[in-house]
């Protein structure tokens, strides 16, 4: 256990930015804070960095309480969203800044800065000022600067959000690779689920100041515990259920899921039966309202009987034609694919 937060609470006036957050991060782990705008991700990261004081709760590193340690003595590397390179210093001086503040000998600083510059593959840009670098290059320098002092934890606050899609994708890989190579415990804030899913070992999904769910990408996708998480990660049909009945049809719910009031099913888990007799048990008759053809995939928007409910199914693109032409349609929801939500 590298980093442990317990019962962290933070208010800004009357808004509760963080409400009783507890969390442990393993050594060398890559954690993502994921959540919609304003849910408190940045605030939590800033509390860990020591840039903000929590009203309640503690932050511990390897069993040491950090409450009395100011940001500059924590030795945490931080990369901010944008524009945090010192505009009056070259890339190399920016990278060496942390060591300069620690009064390391000049030669050591220069060597380390050059090494870090090489790590982010910008060796030929060392003498440029931030204003002469592209956004992606600036963020790579910021990463190198954060890593130059051998920090115990690396904190990244939406480091890629100001960049365009192409650069973002390549930098994702680069950050992850550097992180793995150095084995550094890392926390990254993002509101981009794809970013979280592709980079993180574990993801903390946050909702208005609380942790909605914590788990690996797979766990969150396959076993969301709440509607919020289910809808935030991937797509999910949310269906109200009463006495195991949905739209007048009996659902085959497993025994531990009896009595649920809300269930979810992923579009790709909805099975389509074209031309089946409507009376087949376990099948729910539907009418096709709309087809969204995406090439390799197609989304079907289906009306469930006359209930006014709709459900979205995802099918391979090539299967589209047969379904559109079918006289009757029905769907099947397999019990093991049904998720019970709160």
């Amino acid at each position, binding site marked *: 256990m590298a980093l442990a937060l317990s019962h962290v609470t933070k208010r800004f006036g009357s808004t509760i930015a963080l409400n009783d957050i507890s969390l442990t991060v393993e050594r060398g782990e890559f954690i993502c804070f994921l959540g919609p705008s304003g849910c408190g991700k940045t605030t939590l990261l800033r509390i860990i960095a020591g840039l903000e*004081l929590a009203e309640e709760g503690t932050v511990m590193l390897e069993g040491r309480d950090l*409450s009395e340690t100011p*940001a*500059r003595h924590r030795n945490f590397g931080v990369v901010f969203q944008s524009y*945090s390179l010192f505009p009056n210093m070259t890339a190399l001086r920016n990278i060496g800044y942390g060591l300069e503040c620690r009064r390391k000998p000049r030669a050591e600083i220069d060597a380390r800065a050059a090494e870090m510059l090489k790590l982010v593959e910008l060796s030929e840009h060392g003498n440029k000022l931030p204003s002469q670098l592209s956004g992606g290059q600036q963020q790579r320098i910021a990463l190198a600067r954060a890593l130059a002092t051998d920090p115990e934890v690396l904190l990244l606050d939406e480091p890629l959000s100001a960049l365009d899609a192409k650069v973002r994708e390549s930098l994702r890989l680069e950050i992850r690779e550097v992180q793995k190579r150095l084995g550094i415990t890392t926390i990254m804030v993002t509101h981009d689920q794809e970013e979280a899913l592709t980079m993180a070992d574990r993801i903390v999904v946050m909702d208005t100041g609380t942790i909605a769910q914590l788990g690996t990408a797979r766990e969150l996708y396959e076993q969301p515990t709440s509607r919020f998480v289910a809808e935030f990660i991937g797509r999910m049909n949310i269906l109200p259920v009463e006495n195991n009945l949905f739209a007048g049809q009996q659902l085959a719910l497993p025994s531990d899921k009896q009595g649920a009031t809300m269930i979810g099913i992923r579009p790709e888990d909805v099975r389509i039966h074209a031309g089946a007799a409507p009376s087949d048990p376990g099948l729910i008759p539907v009418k096709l309202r709309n087809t969204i053809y995406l090439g390799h995939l197609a989304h079907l928007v289906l009306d469930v009987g006359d209930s006014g409910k709709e459900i979205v199914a995802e099918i391979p693109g090539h299967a589209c034609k047969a379904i559109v032409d079918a006289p009757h349609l029905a769907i099947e929801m397999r019990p093991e694919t049904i998720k019970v939500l709160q």
Partner: protein
Amino acid sequence: MSTLAVDQAASQSRRKNRKSRMAGIVPAIIVGIPLALFVLFPLTHILGRSFSTPDGYGLANYAAMLGNERFLRITWNSFAVTIVTTILAIVFAYTFAYAIQRSTMPFRNLFRLIAVLPLFAPSLVQAQGLVLLFGRNGIINRTFDLGIDLYGYWGIVIASVLYVFPYAFLILSAALAVADARIYESAEMLGASKWRAFRTVTLPATRYGLAAAIFVCFTLVITDFGNPMVIGGDYTVLASEVYNQVIGQANFEMGTVIGMVLLIPAAIAAIVEKRVSAKQYALISEHSKPLVPQQDRMRDRFLLAAALLISLAILLIVAVVVFASFVHLWPYRMNFSLRHYAFDVQNGIQPLWNSIYISVMAAGIGVVVVTAAAYVIEKFPSPATRALYFLSILPAAVPGMVLGLGYILAFNNPMNPVYAIYGTLFIIAIANVYYYHAHGFLISGTSMKQISGRFDEASATLGGSRLQTFTKVTLPLLFPTLVGIAVFFFMRSMVTLSAVIFLITPNTQVAAVSVLYLQDRGATNQAAAFSVCIIATIMVVLLAVRLLLNATGHKNVSLIR
């Protein structure tokens, strides 16, 4: 973790929070003490003295003043001059600024330079030039024998309009520089005529700048005494009356009462101006599209003509002063002569050296003092922040003469520790620093706010201490602004009369005051030579600083504020 431990941690961090806010008080006090000593303390003396009568404290001085028909007339005079001057100056400055910012007329950069030229000269140079031209011994009256009598109301008004013109121009020019092209495009799409677009878009968009300019002009004119002294004749205004009471009759009580009367409108104007100018920034959103002036023959020709006329007036005044300094005896013997540069009267050239010495000191001290105030207010929030901010901008409301008078009353007393520097050049530099504190502080504060707080945080996470952050990051980023502030203090200290007039001694005479005395004695040519020396000094310094800034890669710093 047990609840107890959590509670402990919570109260610990709360305590720490409070501790850091309390810790901010120490720097606030360190910065606040000199401000209180050199601004607030003298003002309390003015206030106290104005109530002091032979039979203890009372309203007798004010009663005597209000019952005095002469005083009421002088007050009326002051307002008559100030209001008319302000209206004229604003109309001219707006036209000029509009021509520079919103038209395609040629030589706009040259015109801009001409507009600020009077800032390089002592504040009475306008009256000086007018006297050389239209005075009793002016060239016009001597040559054409027209019998023009300029001394009095109109003399003061014309001189004052020229005096405050550059200040109004700078403010209005800044207000007109920002404009959202989209609004003008939509006005045009809706079929608004040019004049209508001006009335419904331009004027309202610049109303805050306009208000600020009006108040600045008002304050400058009502508290100016150099021009009325030289060209007022028998027409007395409040500011020159303070001078007469204090210097002429050593009547400090009356001087302070009039000072209080001056303080009130100046304070009201300053407060309104600060409120209003804070709103100017909100008008432009990030999505605005800058307005590029389109050519318009008629409009541009009209504006060019107006700009030419105004420039001509400004240049004429300065040119006449320069010219007069180089002739044998204006306007009788107009052959070239350098004899007025011999400075063989009184203290000779010493006052100019004094001025330069004072201005360099004021520049150095001023930069440190205003930057410290802005830094503490920005980075050490504490319960004292608001008070410190108030103290920092308070001098904007205090007329220079009132501050100077306060210094006499407060420090000309062997019991006061400051007495040690009383009567030295140093205290004159200090007076200049605090007289111009508000303006320098606002420049410094604005650019400190523009330096993102991100840099502080980035530095902190990298292990930088406050001091390291300040010296390695904040200071280098602030550098061009600091140079601008130093130049500002230097320029103003070179030309000011009002803040220093009561503080000079025969040994600490300054150049601007020499101009006044020489002019007063009728030595107009020598006065002109002194003015030229001041102008030349400022220009040389400006040029040197500009070259220095260009050499260090800071081309876009405005030096004239």
